[in-house]
């Protein structure tokens, strides 16, 4: 039964990729894309229901394993992928109308989009650290093609950097995986089961500490590149700024989460084996560094998408910090922050996408008076910005509240950095967004009506999460937090 559901979940996007590889050039490709994503979403919901009822389960002779932790990421991923596909329909039409995209490019876009979803879902659901790696690599490859979609010099450069850096990072992660296996095979013996997370988790106490330390470093540097932890983050702003906006949305909304999920999984193993807080401390360090540097970099950005890319780095840093602190509340907060960040950030990118199309430039100095030219986009951007800046009653505040207070309680010495970074980030982003939405402007309306349902849908969800969390959801989070310890 679970096998079937899982198969549905994984095969729909794969099949969709195939379909769109064939029909991607048709005028109704966009609708097909959305349809496929919707089916994926439905499947993910079904799977989630099941897991909530029946608890963690393995599938395909344990090659896949689904517990509360990854299933909520699965649901989140499927959902955001779906809304993004909705958004990309008019967005891509407008781009085409502006002559930035050809039909062939769209063709590539749609098929790659589905494959990308597939890769992410595999990376989330698989139980095999090796396959995690494979899926991550696959996700990288697909997104590289998406980032370079426009074929402009800038996009090529961005894609190339993205490709090389993440390729190297991923390769290092592979070495880490190998070391993990090296340690594991001596406990679990040769062959298939030695890379299965569940098994590793059972025997994590017996794994060889020195090897795991080494392994974790490689895994952290490897997947950390993908998360965008400073100083491995260099690819991230370029890729976000130069790729098509829907891709930026899924990149910072989803892919980063997936990579982080992998790191967290391995952190559980390593700290379990070392019996110390080694991995946690490393993560906290990287988190704080990313937070600080990202906040400072935000100050000087001129390109709007670049700026929000940095804000993604900042938030990933915060989440990494939270998971690094560990403990029930912090982990809980970390997962909550993952959720609300993906929702908010993708919403922001949707709004930004249309704003950029209106103004015809990504330079923030040339974007003015959004509230006047189209109030919906303007308000979407304003509210999204306030949400991402951690203004209540949006959900981002809830998680930041928990993270900051817990940090104050557990690791007081970190709080000055938190205070400074959050303050600077606020000043930077808010100070740049305010003149964009306010004031006067002369911009022409768009050829197609913008898709703002996703924006406000996301923001609404974030708002609700901020003031009210349904009991089953919180239980679900709590179990996940318990799983990760």
């Amino acid at each position, binding site marked *: 039964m679970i096998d079937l559901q899982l198969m549905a979940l994984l095969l729909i996007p794969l099949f969709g990729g195939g379909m769109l590889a064939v029909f991607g050039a048709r005028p109704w490709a966009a609708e097909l894309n959305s349809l496929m994503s919707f089916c994926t979403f439905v499947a993910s919901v079904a799977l989630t229901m099941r897991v909530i009822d029946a608890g963690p389960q393995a599938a395909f002779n344990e090659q896949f394993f689904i517990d509360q932790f990854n299933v909520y990421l699965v649901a989140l991923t499927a959902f955001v992928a779906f809304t993004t596909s909705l958004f990309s329909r008019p967005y891509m039409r407008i781009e085409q109308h502006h002559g930035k995209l050809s039909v062939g490019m769209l063709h590539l876009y749609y098929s790659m989009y589905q494959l990308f979803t597939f890769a992410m879902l595999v990376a989330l659901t698989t139980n095999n650290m090796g396959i995690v790696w494979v899926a991550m690599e696959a996700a990288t490859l697909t997104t590289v093609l998406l980032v370079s979609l426009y074929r402009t010099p800038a996009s090529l450069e961005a894609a190339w950097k993205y490709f090389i850096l993440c390729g190297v990072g991923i390769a290092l992660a592979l070495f880490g995986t190998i070391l993990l296996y090296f340690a594991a095979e001596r406990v679990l013996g040769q062959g298939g089961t030695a890379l299965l997370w569940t098994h590793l988790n059972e025997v994590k106490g017996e794994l060889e500490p020195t090897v795991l330390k080494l392994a974790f470093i490689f895994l952290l540097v490897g997947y950390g*590149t993908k998360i965008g932890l400073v100083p491995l983050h*260099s690819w991230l702003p370029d890729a976000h700024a130069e790729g098509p906006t829907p891709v930026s949305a899924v990149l910072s909304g989803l892919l980063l989460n997936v990579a982080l999920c992998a790191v967290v999984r391995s952190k559980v193993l390593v700290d379990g084996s070392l019996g110390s807080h080694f991995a946690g401390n490393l993560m906290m360090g990287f988190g704080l560094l990313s937070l600080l540097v990202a906040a400072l970099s935000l*100050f000087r950005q001129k390109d709007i998408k670049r700026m929000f890319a940095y804000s993604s780095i900042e938030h990933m840093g915060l989440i990494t910090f939270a998971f690094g602190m560990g403990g029930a509340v912090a982990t809980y907060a970390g997962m909550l922050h993952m959720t609300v960040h993906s929702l908010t950030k993708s919403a922001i990118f949707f709004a930004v996408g249309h704003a950029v199309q209106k103004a015809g430039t990504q330079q923030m100095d040339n974007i003015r008076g959004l509230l006047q030219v189209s109030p919906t986009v303007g308000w979407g951007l304003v509210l999204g910005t306030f949400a991402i800046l951690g203004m209540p009653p949006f959900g981002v505040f809830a998680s930041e509240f928990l993270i900051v207070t817990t940090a*104050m309680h557990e690791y007081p010495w970190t*709080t000055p950095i938190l*205070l400074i970074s959050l303050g600077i980030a606020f000043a930077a982003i808010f100070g740049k967004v305010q003149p964009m939405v306010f*004031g006067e402007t002369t911009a022409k309306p768009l050829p197609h009506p913008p898709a703002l349902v996703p924006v406000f849908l996301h923001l609404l969800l974030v708002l609700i999460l901020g003031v009210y969390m349904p009991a089953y959801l919180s*239980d679900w989070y709590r179990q996940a937090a318990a799983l990760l310890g």
Partner: protein
Amino acid sequence: MLGVVGLWVKDAARFIFPLSAAASLVLAVSSVLALSTAPETLVLPLGLPDLPFHLRLDPLSAFFLILLGAASAGISLFGTGYFRHLEDKTLRLLCLEYHLFLAGMALVMLADDAYLFMVAWEVMALSSYFLVTTDHAIPDIRKAGFLYLLIAHVGAIAILLSFGVMQGGHGIGAYTFDAMRNAELSSFWASAAFLLALFGFGAKAGVLPMHVWLPEAHPAAPSPVSALMSGVMLKTAIYGILRVTFDLLGTQLWWWGVLALGLGLATAIFGVMFAAVQADMKRLLAYSSIENIGLLLTGIGLTLIFHVYGKDTLAALALIATLYHSLNHAMFKSLLFVGTGSILHATGERNMGRLGGLMRKMPWAAWLVLVGVLAISGLPPLNGFVSEWLLLQAFLLSPGLPNDYINMLVPVAAAVVALAAALAAYVMVKFYGVIFLGQPREASLERAHDAGIWERIGMGWLALACVGLGLAPVFVVHQLDRVAQMLLGVQLGNAANNWVFLTPVDIERASYSPLFFLLAVLGVMLLTSLLVRRLYHGRVRRSAPWDCGFPAQTARMQDTAEGFGQPIRRIFEPFFKIEREVPSPFDMHPHYQGRSEDRLWYILYQPLQHLTEKLSAMAGLLQHGRIHLYLTYTFVTLVVLLLFV
């Protein structure tokens, strides 16, 4: 009560403002009742898991709710008239924000757990930000809004941290105020919490040196909003400080009090000094708000000192003075701000140098504002005097503290308070005299019209409150005793035993009866006027004022706002950053301009800004495009990490 709040938030057309005024009245009255009853708590099914929204209505919050209700009732009534001319779209938006603002403030005072408190706090900040930037086409207003929200947010994070310090035990459930009350803190952490709270709330209240946003944001906002912000929102910060210091933190240290006292005095003097040299009437009022916040903080500091040294009656006295003054300030400052609002409507002019003689054009506004002016200058028998009187009493009764330094400090502090009060009178005479008295300085002022009926009602209500609070101090103090009872466990028992004389401690030590005073003066006035008319006559002849032999006098030759402030600027020269454009003897069109600015901005904030920019420039160097470098980062990171295992 929250039902009422919820009703506010619902957006509707113009009749909503009187409605909300009524609602505020209901709120105020119900809180008056709640003042005497035991604390009621309420838990909503909202909020974080394990941390639903807790609400609690105890005397402290009840008192501040009274303040909110009473002030906002008048302001909303005024707003009914003031916002009449807006077109519908803007009005709807503004109405929504306005009531969100009110609801946020009410919730701040009702919140009983850190999360709800922060949510309400930031909702308050956010909605007020949108209100401030109502006409955001003007860049200066955007700048003001930015500064305001930035400082508010940083302050909010500080408050958050202080809650983090105070949280009781682990888990999400540890953020209720009850848990915090029970938490045992070492004196170090308690101090940390206090300092963080002081910083955070101080940033909201405009305490030195976090005051810079206040004189920018208040003038930028529409007048009823400035009234709300200055009259009520600043008090939420005072509420927060009181709540944290006396309710949540179990122990207090004497130096907290000294710190608060010092900060308060500095703020008071600073505020009034700058108020004296302002030419923009709303800026002037904003600075005077800073001054009053300083006085309130002084009162809190005094309370702390007395409380720590076990002189609880005096602590109660100081606390009651503080609360009383915050109530008074809410009333007269709102009155003055809405007054400027109707002036703006009538003349479209904020610069006092272009006003004058409005008393003839708009008598209603003039007389009502006069009440506020007299009250804020601390003149008997109005309310401003009562709270100052109580505060000074607290100072006078202070000797005998075990700490000599504080004993030395207290009289000096009293002197500073007295100085600030006297300067406030100066400022207010300037404010009123330049705007309402004399001759109109511009021809356009001839077309000025008086305040509308709604505006009159609103201002009338506030003025009435000023008079009432001034004439019936005994009753008020009796009510405030409950708050003192709750926070300090002591009452000013014999305050109420004599309905005509206000005797905080003992009839032999001090007493004051505004009612008697008023009657005496009025009686004497009546008597004299009667006698004069009886013994002599009441003939009056009108003629032109004496021009001392210089017939070519124009209205422009009157004393301007700058001129009136000039002595102050001259006496306190070093505190201002003064830029002057003095005409040379040969100018065909001589033109004088003087601006006095806040040195703190240049000493404190600009360096901060530059530092941040420098740092971010350094961060920018990381990202300079060469892929080899990026690879090197990866490589180095890897090697370094490997080295350190």
